């Protein structure tokens, strides 16, 4: 089956710093989404981005489908950005990466 790899596994930032999270996938996909899981376990949809670039406030994402990777950019990070960020791809069904655990310190 398809492999979804996220890096880095853990990331610690000071408030105000910028970061880039990466998602590599091993096959062509129909859909790619980024989620943020907050400390209460809720999965928040960040981006639906099978290809191209999207921006939403301090967050942006780029997917290069032909090269099988996606990037999530977080600028001017805040403590509320802490949590786990998941990349998920739709192949035969939705497959999740292992996640990047982000901690933003004040």
């Amino acid at each position, binding site marked *: 089956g398809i492999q979804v790899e996220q890096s880095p596994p853990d990331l610690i930032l000071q408030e105000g710093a910028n970061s880039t999270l990466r998602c590599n996938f091993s096959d062509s996909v*129909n*859909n790619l*989404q980024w*989620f943020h899981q907050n400390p209460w*376990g*809720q*999965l928040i*949809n960040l981006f*639906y981005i099978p290809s191209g670039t999207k921006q939403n406030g301090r967050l942006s994402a780029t997917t290069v489908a032909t090269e099988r990777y996606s990037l999530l950019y977080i600028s001017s990070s805040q403590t509320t950005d802490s949590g786990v960020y*998941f990349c*998920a791809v*739709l192949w035969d*069904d*939705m*497959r*999740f*990466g*292992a*996640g990047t655990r982000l901690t933003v310190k004040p």
Partner: protein
Amino acid sequence: SAVISQKPSRDICQRGTSLTIQCQVDSQVTMMFWYRQQPGQSLTLIATANQGSEATYESGFVIDKFPISRPNLTFSTLTVSNMSPEDSSIYLCSVRRDVSYEQYFGPGTRLTVT
């Protein structure tokens, strides 16, 4: 988007008992899914529950342990049967939009088995 609610939000159960989790969606959807997230892990698909057909289970999950109902296009239940401490996880309901394939998740049910 889709608004999804789950009941209960959390529960503590004794081993050997069963718990039924309910999932309600604010609009009709064809494709619904149940996922499990074990502590510190990513999400794993348990089964796909499409209305009008039997649920399709992923490898490692069986109907006797995780029976699923899908009586209509806005509702589904997942039962965790004969529970053991290894079943302690977050269980999440999810729906996928028919046209865009964008997927949404409910708030999850945090289950602890003692």
